[in-house]
């Protein structure tokens, strides 16, 4: 395995140190335990929006710490949920008296560690919002429930904007839950990521197959099918997402085409263009867009499509200023 890393066990820490140095005007990196906070403290009384999860999805979550978005992020080891002591330390550091809104991707590991962390921080007001946007997981009765994937970034953006404008904890939680309810995603892998600790691809695909409905941890997906080009893949992903959302003509959405880490931007725009045309044909208006590799899975080749149903408030929270390493306007 060749990666721009040194000792595998140091990878998360070394990367975090570099991240902190590159963005010292924006963030502070804490190493023991590991978490990232804003360089500028929150205004007293502001809700601290905190998120975290396994590493390997960069820029999520560390790259989203900053004005208008996260107050803190908690990176775990590669593809491994952070530990409760890390999360609790981040809560303590981020809280500015307005309480903490934790945005948690729905994975057993994340859920259990965040839950345990909340038990460790008795004095703090912590609310939690689960993101479970992945429509690839169908039957949540027989599973741990839908996973949280790229839609997480959108929930973090609107929650961060609500906190920044001064909403209280209940209100920020309410808007985050509404955003989480309005967002759906589905992804495809053309090639699995190589996880540093194993040095191997996390699953094997032939040169003619794609894996549809993958998560972001190198887990295999819902099914495997022959590769038939960008248009067909785009249709499969978008249909699953819009069917689940029951999108109707006349509605307005945010369309987010996300790269999994090793996908050229030019290909993401091909997918975006096709998805956009399909939505237009159905009378759905794409009012806001995001295209790029934001919620990645190390060096996985592939993409996901996320659609969020917009209303006026979600639109204006999306538009609100943000100043982080990965998103800025």
């Amino acid at each position, binding site marked *: 395995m060749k990666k721009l890393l040194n000792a595998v*066990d140091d990878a998360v820490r070394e990367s975090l140190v570099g991240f902190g140095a590159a963005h010292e005007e924006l963030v502070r990196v804490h190493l023991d*335990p590991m978490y990232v906070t804003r360089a500028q403290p929150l205004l007293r009384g502001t809700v601290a929006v905190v998120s975290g999860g*396994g590493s390997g999805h960069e820029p999520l979550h560390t790259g989203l710490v900053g004005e208008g978005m996260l107050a803190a992020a908690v990176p*775990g*080891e*590669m*593809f*491994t*949920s*952070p*530990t*409760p*002591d*890390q999360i609790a330390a981040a809560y303590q550091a981020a809280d500015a008296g307005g309480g903490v809104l934790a945005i948690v991707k729905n*994975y*057993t*590991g994340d859920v*259990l*560690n965040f*839950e*345990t962390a909340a038990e460790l921080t008795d004095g703090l007001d912590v609310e939690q919002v689960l993101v479970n946007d992945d429509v*690839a*997981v169908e*039957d949540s009765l*027989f*599973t*741990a429930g839908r*996973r949280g994937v790229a839609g997480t970034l959108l929930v973090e953006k609107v929650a961060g904007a609500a906190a920044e404008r001064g909403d209280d904890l209940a209100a920020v939680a309410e808007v985050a839950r509404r955003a989480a309810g309005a967002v759906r995603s589905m992804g495809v892998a053309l090639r699995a990521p190589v*996880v540093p*600790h*194993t040095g*191997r691809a*996390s*699953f094997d695909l032939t040169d003619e197959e794609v894996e549809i409905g993958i*998560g972001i*941890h*190198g*887990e*295999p997906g*819902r099914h495997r099918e022959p590769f038939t080009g960008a248009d067909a893949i785009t249709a499969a992903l978008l249909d699953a997402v819009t069917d689940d959302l029951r999108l109707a003509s006349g509605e307005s959405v945010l369309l987010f085409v996300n790269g999994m880490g090793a996908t050229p931007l030019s290909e993401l725009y091909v997918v975006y263009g096709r998805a956009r045309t399909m939505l237009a044909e159905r009378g759905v208006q794409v009012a806001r867009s995001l295209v790029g590799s934001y919620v990645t899975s190390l060096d996985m080749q592939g993409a996901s499509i996320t659609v969020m149903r917009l209303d006026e408030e979600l639109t204006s929270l999306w538009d609100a200023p943000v100043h982080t390493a990965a998103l800025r306007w």
Partner: protein
Amino acid sequence: MTLDVEWARRWVALAAQAITEAKDELVELDREIGDGDHGVNLDRGFAAVAAKIEGMDRPATVGEILTTVATTLMSSVGGASGPLYGTAFLRAGKVSGLAELGPDAVVALLEGALEGITSRGRAGVGEKTMVDAWAPAVEAAVRSAGAGDEPAAVLRAAADAAADGARSTIPLVASKGRASYLGERSAGHMDPGARSSAILLDAAARAAA
């Protein structure tokens, strides 16, 4: 052989060693139906645990050791298994505030662990998780203690039942944890957490032998 503080220390040392040896196997099991990190997570955790316990200054009770195992795992493993094993050892430690464990105390320790896992993870038997190793282990321990066995024999019975339990997960379709996303595709593989549970209980029995 009495199950005292020295036994608990031996357990930890043997567990850390066994997990290191099984690291690749656990990674491979988790790669098949999960995300391939289970072996790495536990190895990182038990290395931290071993170092911590070695450096511990004269623990008076088995419970003290198990509680330290719990908090160390909790802050070093991450993933699903971190809080699950952490809570298991925490509850096991709570009921083991003794300098030495008899057969009933061993049963209580195992029951505490299982209770910790199910209260944290909310999985029942047959969902293809570590519960499928711990539940039969507790049953076997109850039977063995009821039959008047020595503590070491109670542990051996539990460990063997856990190994059988781990094997029993192979045909199951997962409905909890990451493997559940695979649906039917999860059948045909042993659950990594059940396997590591069997390894940990085997280390406990060996430490007592």
